[in-house]
């Protein structure tokens, strides 16, 4: 489904601040896998996610989605395959647009944005239906500007918006980092639910060790830009939080 081969990425190349963020990183992810990415700060998790999304390009190596080489496709071209949820809860939605307008754009992620007006009653019904999953009471506030909602609510919207249009891969970069514990738990539950129900292939970056052991079907740990642990579902189930902590202690 997703093949990352020998990815290498420098930042600030040729300056005293040069950093090697990813160093010959190779990873294959099968369809339907829900991969949790862990690792210390600077281990390359976010870089890896951003390379998959096309925010920037690798110095070396290739990225294949279902056999198609997407290494040189720009982020807005890769949106055909990829949906994203960002660490910043404000980044995934447009504040000055209403909830329904945000969903309209999300529903067109893989399509052209033409001179049609797509927000009609049936679309509103559909969005309203989806929103009721969140149990936040947003289903009756379709015309509310998104900027008036809280970070948690906006992150929940981003998550739902990511599955409004067909997608092959869902990327979540610390989606709960900026949220309070309760909202965070809710976002994780919803994420797991949509990933399972729609049989999505997903990658989630987290610093929360409890999430790392209790969510997902596979656990991958990065260190200094390389994959150093890779636990499939069977082994992951037996993993304890304390054990996971100890991985971080080793130099």
């Amino acid at each position, binding site marked *: 489904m997703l093949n990352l081969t020998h990815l290498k990425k420098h930042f600030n190349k040729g300056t005293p601040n040069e950093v090697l963020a990813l160093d010959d990183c190779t990873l294959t992810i099968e369809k339907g896998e829900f991969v949790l990415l862990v690792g210390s700060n600077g281990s390359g998790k976010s870089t890896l996610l951003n390379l998959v999304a096309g925010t920037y390009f690798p110095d070396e190596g290739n990225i294949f989605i279902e056999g198609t080489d997407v290494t040189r496709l720009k982020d807005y*071209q890769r*949106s055909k395959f990829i949906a994203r949820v960002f660490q910043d809860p404000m980044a*995934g939605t*447009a504040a000055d647009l209403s909830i329904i307008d945000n969903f309209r*754009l999300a529903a*067109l992620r893989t399509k052209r*944005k033409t*001179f049609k007006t797509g927000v009609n009653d049936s679309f509103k019904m559909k969005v309203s239906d989806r929103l009721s999953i969140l149990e936040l009471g947003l289903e009756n506030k379709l015309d509310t500007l998104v900027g008036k909602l809280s970070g948690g609510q906006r992150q929940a919207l981003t998550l739902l918006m990511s599955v409004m249009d067909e997608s092959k891969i869902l990327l979540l970069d610390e989606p709960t980092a900026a949220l309070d514990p309760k909202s965070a738990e809710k976002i994780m539950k919803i994420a797991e639910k949509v990933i399972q129900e729609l049989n999505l292939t997903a990658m989630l970056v987290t610093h929360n060790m409890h999430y790392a052991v209790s969510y997902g079907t596979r656990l991958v740990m990065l260190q200094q830009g390389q994959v150093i642990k890779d636990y499939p579902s069977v082994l992951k189930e037996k993993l304890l939080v304390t054990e996971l902590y100890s991985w971080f202690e080793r130099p």
Partner: protein
Amino acid sequence: MDFYLSAILLGLAYCGMGLGIYITLRIFNIPDITTDGSFTLGASVTAALLSQQYPIVTALLMSMIAGSLAGLATGIIHTRLKINPLLSGILVMTALYSVNLSIMGRSNIPLINTANLLQLTNWFQREQYNWLLLMAIVALGLWCLISWLLKTDFGLSMRATGNSETMIRALGVNTDGMKVIGLMIANALTALSGFLVCQFQQFADINMGIGIVIFGLGAVMMGESLLNALRIQSIPLRLAGVIAGCILFRIIIGAALTFGINPNWLKLVTAVIVLVVVGLPNIKRRAGN
């Protein structure tokens, strides 16, 4: 009375530019200084073509095309060369001064005995009323067009581009391309205003665009403070607010002139009015804290 009538007339003539500035400033967060140049560009293309006996439709189309090319230049400088949009606008505006001079061949073209929009509009005996109806029709048409555009899927992507670039790129929109298109639309609208004002005043002058962007910014913000006071969010009403702002601003300037302010001070008055409109909310906020 006549004074206010011509203030309203000019306000309506400027509303194309006002709507253009709304698009660049409020949708893309770009204060587009190109406006000063593309306004004059619209007028000089019109004057040059009409004085050579080209039909009015040609002048209208060519001035709008020229305006959109000016926007294209600013857009490409900003998105491709990654130059600050303010600076990109200033560069293009400066370059346009020479372009406008060479289009006109001199600094001023009077339009006497040339084709004029008034020849198409024999509705009333009084010339002023014909102009009023004509400008009102144009303003209404532009209002409908932009209101519709911003409601379409394309328009939603435009609005999201200025709002959350990360989000809309992840949703498959080329934000650089979007900004270029936005600047092209805005400057075509500004050139349309140049076309109208040139027709109305029956001349084009190389300096007619100086400071016009400040007028536009002021008109947009004036309309906005009006709507914010009424807590209105809807886009069509906000656009109507821009048109109201253009008229209101012209009336204020007109009133200032009737109170005997020396016309030499006009730009200063304009700048002070805009400063008040921009600064007042901040002063209020501070007082509130």
